[in-house]
């Protein structure tokens, strides 16, 4: 082997190893850090209880928002067919309102309640999360 070929080979192998390790770490991590999105119907249908953090999206049911102090809120999220009652402690985003789209992140408990640790807000008052539009379209509740 000539010198240049040797050097090229070393360079190639080193890059390959670095690259391979990087890709391995990435894929391994990606699998562990995915948060799935479900509509209320899907959660009830699949009975998504357990310790896995998931996202739930739909419309905030009208007249369902109750506050019991200490920044604890209860409200229902509906997709027109099923609704799930959500408990959340924290500050609600400014654009959170009844009959508006919302996405919450947290855990669905065995007793049928969703304990949210995050309520996601969008900047725009007309903005509807695409996942929510999709699930509303599937249940036929979507109005243009």
């Amino acid at each position: 082997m000539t010198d240049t070929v040797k050097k090229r080979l070393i360079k190639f192998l080193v890059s390959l190893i670095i690259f391979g390790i990087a890709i391995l770490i990435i894929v391994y991590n990606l699998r562990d850090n995915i948060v799935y999105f479900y509509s209320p119907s899907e959660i009830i249908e699949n009975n998504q209880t357990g310790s896995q953090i998931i996202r739930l999206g739909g419309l905030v049911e009208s007249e369902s928002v109750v506050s019991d102090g200490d920044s604890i809120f209860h409200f229902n999220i509906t997709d027109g067919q099923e609704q799930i009652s959500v408990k959340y402690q924290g500050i609600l985003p400014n654009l959170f309102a009844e009959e508006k789209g919302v996405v919450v992140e947290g855990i669905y408990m065995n007793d049928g309640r969703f304990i949210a640790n995050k309520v996601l807000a969008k900047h725009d008052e007309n903005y509807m999360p695409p996942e929510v539009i999709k699930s509303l379209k599937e249940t036929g509740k979507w109005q243009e």
Partner: protein
Amino acid sequence: MSLALHYIANLLLILCLVTSMIQSRFLFNIQNYNLFSISQISAIQFLSILVSFFILIFLFITSDFNFDLVYFHSHSEKPLIYKLSGVWGNHEGSMLLWILILVLFNFLFSLSKSRSQKFKEITVAVQSLMIFGFVLFLLLLSNPFNINNENFNDGLGLNPILQDPLLAIHPPILYIGYVGFSLIFSLSITGLLTSEVDKKWATIAKPWVFAAWSFLTAGIALGSYWAYYELGWGGYWFWDPVENASLMPWLSATALIHCVVVLQRRNTMQSWTMVLAILTFSLSLAGTFLVRSGVLNSVHTFASDPGRGLFILIFLFIILSSSFLLFALKSEKINKPSLHNISSRNTGIMVNNWLLISILIVVFLGTMYPLATDLLYNQSLTVGPQYYAISITPIIILFLFFMILSPQLSWRESKLLKILNEMRYILISCLTITFLTTLYFDLFNFTEILIIFLSLILIISSLSLGLNFKSTKVIVKSNFGQSIAHAGFGIFMLAVVSNAVYSQEKIYDAKVGSKLQLDEYIFDFKNIEQEEKDNFNSIRAYLSLSKNGKDLGEFSPEIRFYSDPPTITSETSIIHQFFSDVYVVMNVPQNQESISLRLHIKPFMNILWLGVIMIILGGIITAILNRKKYEENAIN
């Protein structure tokens, strides 16, 4: 009047279209037109777009609602600065701004000295071909000068969250960065066409690439700072798809600037430089337009329109396929055999290039994976921030290591032991500092300690490379830009880690008169007031902050109720101290008795921004300092 302006603006756009066509003739070997010189035609291209941009500004300032764009995105009662920023706060206007910067770079380049007339002609031709494509797109698919026949009394307004002075200058700065890489792209295509990718090529490209990179960095930083104080979530980076879309070209551009330096010094890494130049511009294009197309699901999507995304995808496909085809045909010709030892600076830079690309892949997979599963399996999902943190941390540790090592290596060959010996004082002092900090702050996470240790070495070793300490005076060396930027990155990493470890937050349901506590800080909630302002009403809370009985200042977080369009925004209130920011956000009151307040302590934020500013400064210094050399080399 409106009708006249409508025609004038459209005629100007068509003028630019025609001149761009004339400019791109060099690509097709048509030489029989010599009425005006290249720079004169470039000036016409530039002026036609500049004047039409001024017309658009004029329309927004005078609130001419006969124009669709003004009607949908402005309002007569808006303050002047937001009428102005409304010009680029929407799709059509931001396209025009994008094109304006594109022709500006073309014009500036046509004025600069270049290696040969032919080189300049072809570069301008490639750039003009792109200008042609974008102006055509603007005219046909997103014309900002469309008029309506209704007589609207008032406009629909600009989203209030965008009504912020920082956000008024954020898009132009970011765009100068993005579009700057179009010139690097044109230069690369020219280099490939003429098979002239060498030291001279790098010398010509260097100031442009560093300038574009500095602007891109500044643009991202501004966006991040805006998110920090306006969104009120306490963070400065959320790994949101739109943020990632701007980070990806930055990562590839950062690799590119180092390659250009290697090319200039050692006349090697030609292919890699070309690949990075093409990649950076493609990612910049994708960055701007996928954001606007609504393909990416993000909290930052303001003006979205899926239909236009298609044009950009086609455009992107043409650019990528044609340039990589050209590259495949020419790469053998431009590559020179590289003669360097394995323990040289080339190797160090090469390794860090790979690491940067690894981070790019991490970000790319994280951003695209949800899109892919949605298309393939109809399954919506999100990738959590943890993914990025866990994947990128090991890469960053290696990256820091090579960032410390590479500048110590010479371009030809170095002995590692000798370097270790030279750096012994720095190593020992950093080890001591890290050890003391660890003890003092009860920090026992190995990864964090390692990053802090490496960052400290990076800061000190970078500064000592750029400055020469003589007994009485300090001499600034020619690599001062690099030294500042690298030290800045060290400071930035130090702040990022400490911020992640020591941030605190607490939510209170507070009544007026109550005292709230977080860590050693006492928040005295004084009162609430309602106010009426020009274009919004507000509720303001007043709190005073003290620590150990010492008064530190007043908070006045605010909730604003805008009417056009009806929106509620929270204004955070931040007290900046040297070592930590204290940050208060209030919530829309849900009942009469109490109000939700979120308190944050964000340590090292000032230091984080200091690091970022140093990185940007480093880029600017390198771009400017190089100029003299550039002029000399270009003539020879």
